[in-house]
């Protein structure tokens, strides 16, 4: 297997920047490699996680995108078997014209199936459908010693639960099955409702629990009477049959890094105010295509260049329900508004009770909050550290796929099962994230 000494592989947050060798895999039989590298290895899909779960300094990254074949589809059950490097975009191109849709989708369709399993991703329907791993009946795991495991919730169940949410550390996922769900239209029946405050958000979430998709955008800059204002969005697949065409390819790309001074409290505050006022009335109903509903940013390729070349930091936590007011979430929002660091896209959602299938899966019942920050040296890092502390105080946890800064102590308190998980790690595998959160001292 030829080696490709390119340093420039970045995660979507473009922070941290770590050098590694890249070895592309094109066939499920390419692994184990014929010439074992002398370094540790880590499989990586589309590189759409934000921090360092898909990075390994001075290591060898196995790029799985070449393994993108669809292997079998059963229209009776909706189960699609495909190689792990296929993206959700490619699955949608295949599935939508046939009247099927993803069971769970994150906010971008440019992730691979392998990555979706390895991070046990979630979407706007978590309160009904659980995580992506809940809809994966089976996959194959190949270890560096050549052992092959077919894993399902009942067969090699321990390998299944270690690998779902296992951040690529347990071996290479070569193929997987995904149970698609039927649709009759591309359209989503959408309803947007303005709210102010976390109590109102919680009330709206409870009232909309029957809606398949719910999410809220929240303004992290506004203070005073406007504190925690936002738009609660809910949607269901339209039941009106209509022709199911495949999506067009996006053509809009952010070609260059935006200079970092362009993103400041003023410009982001203006964006937030405009966004909040994009609907005048308290409530708005519309029939919208699934692309802007699920993937508002996918139409702008390389949108991460918006944050300049130093990149962005993500923060996502989930806090369990609290009796009375959701003090933890309120405290986090107050800390952010007080910091002066602005976030474009803060979203908040209620997670449901469906148990996550992975040992290290992130979702649990409660409220999850996700936001991004430009990197402004120590201010950003200090803020993230304080937010992680609040999450810890309120018995919550943070999402590894969106993290670049949590400490070993924080991770180990969020995921006390990490030691039993570590027995399943392939001895030749490692990641920058894992090194960081298991470091001593």
């Amino acid at each position: 297997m030829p080696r490709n000494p390119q340093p420039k592989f970045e995660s979507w947050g473009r922070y941290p920047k770590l050098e590694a060798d890249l070895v592309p895999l094109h066939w499920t039989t390419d692994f184990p490699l014929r010439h074992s590298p002398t370094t540790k290895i880590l499989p990586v899909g589309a590189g759409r996680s934000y921090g360092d779960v898909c990075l390994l300094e001075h290591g060898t990254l196995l790029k799985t995108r070449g393994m993108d074949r669809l292997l079998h589809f059963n229209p009776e059950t909706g189960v699609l078997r495909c190689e792990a490097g296929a993206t959700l975009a490619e699955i949608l191109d295949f599935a939508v014209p046939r009247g099927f849709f993803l069971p769970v989708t994150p906010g971008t369709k440019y992730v691979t199936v392998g990555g979706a399993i390895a991070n046990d991703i979630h979407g706007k329907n978590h309160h009904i459908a659980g995580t992506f791993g809940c809809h994966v009946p089976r996959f194959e795991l190949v270890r560096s010693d050549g052992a092959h495991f077919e894993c399902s919730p009942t067969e090699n169940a321990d390998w299944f639960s270690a690998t779902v949410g296992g951040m690529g550390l347990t071996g290479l996922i070569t193929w997987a099955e995904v149970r698609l769900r039927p649709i009759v239209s591309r359209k989503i029946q959408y309803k947007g409702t303005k709210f102010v405050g976390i109590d109102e958000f919680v009330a709206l979430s409870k009232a909309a629990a029957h809606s398949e998709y719910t999410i809220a955008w929240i303004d992290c800059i506004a203070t005073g009477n406007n504190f925690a204002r936002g738009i609660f969005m809910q949607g269901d697949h339209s039941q009106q049959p209509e022709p199911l065409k495949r999506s067009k390819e996006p053509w809009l790309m952010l070609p260059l890094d935006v200079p970092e001074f362009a993103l400041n409290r003023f410009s982001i505050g203006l964006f937030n105010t405009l966004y909040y006022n994009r609907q005048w009335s308290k409530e708005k109903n519309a029939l919208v295509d699934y692309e802007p509903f699920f993937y508002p940013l996918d139409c702008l390729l390389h949108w991460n260049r918006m944050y300049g070349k130093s990149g962005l930091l993500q923060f996502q936590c989930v806090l369990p329900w609290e009796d009375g007011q959701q003090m933890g979430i309120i405290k986090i929002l107050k800390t952010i508004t007080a910091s002066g660091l602005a976030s474009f896209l803060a979203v908040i959602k209620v997670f449901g009770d469906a148990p996550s299938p992975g040992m290290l899966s992130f979702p649990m019942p409660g409220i999850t909050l996700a936001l991004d920050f430009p990197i402004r040296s120590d201010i950003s890092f200090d803020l993230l550290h304080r937010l992680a502390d609040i999450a810890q105080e309120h018995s919550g946890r943070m999402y590894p796929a969106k993290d670049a800064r949590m400490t070993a102590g924080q991770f180990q308190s969020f995921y006390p099962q990490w030691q039993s998980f570590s027995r399943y790690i392939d001895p030749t595998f490692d990641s920058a994230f894992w090194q960081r959160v298991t470091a001593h001292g």
Partner: protein
Amino acid sequence: MAKLPSRVLVLGATSAIAAGVMRPLAEQGARIYLVARNPEKLKAVASDLQTRGAGAVFPHVMDLDDTAAHEAMLTEAAAKLETIDLALIAHGILGAQEQAQADYAAAEAILRTNFLSAVSLITWLANYFESTHQGTLAVISSVAGDRGRKSNYVYGSSKAALNTFLDGVRNRIDRSGVHILTIKPGFVSTPMTAHLPQSALFAHPATVGRGILKAIEKRKDVAYVPPMWAIIMFIIRSVPDSIFKKLNL
């Protein structure tokens, strides 16, 4: 727009560029006869095309260097497909230039796979298409055949010979209603180029596949894919030898 071909023979079916051509055809229900050397990889490709909606797939494992076995395979393909609308020749090796310039045996292996085996296939297919007065013969060549460069002139000359051979075949049978397409891809991200540092010039095989299908529909003679390579190669061909010989290309 002309109708896409529906009975397709692909030689070198595990090539990444071939996948870019075959997937849209499979989605339209094409019947596809697939020839490749590695049975496991061929099985994965066949499953992919079947899943995407191919009317039928006929995988055939063989080493295309074995020219003596070409006729039997081609005859079977024509019988299984009933008639061939499109034959795509996609197999080839890059070889190692340093080895090939040091050792004739290595150079010969490159010429055998990229030129001689293709000549054997084209000879049979050209006569087949000429007798049926229809069909497209599309052959994946390379921009490397446009001018010899020190970094890959053995590979490049195998493709240059192929281009000249195809020019002649086109001149002979275009008048019979047969379309001969010479495809010249630039850098494409495939297993063949995985060891090279990838730059912005590298195209995705799916993009290249769409470009090839467009060239088939438009009945082009020679197609650079992506099209910007026509400009790049025009410039490279225009440099006088007195200067070119001193460049590091």
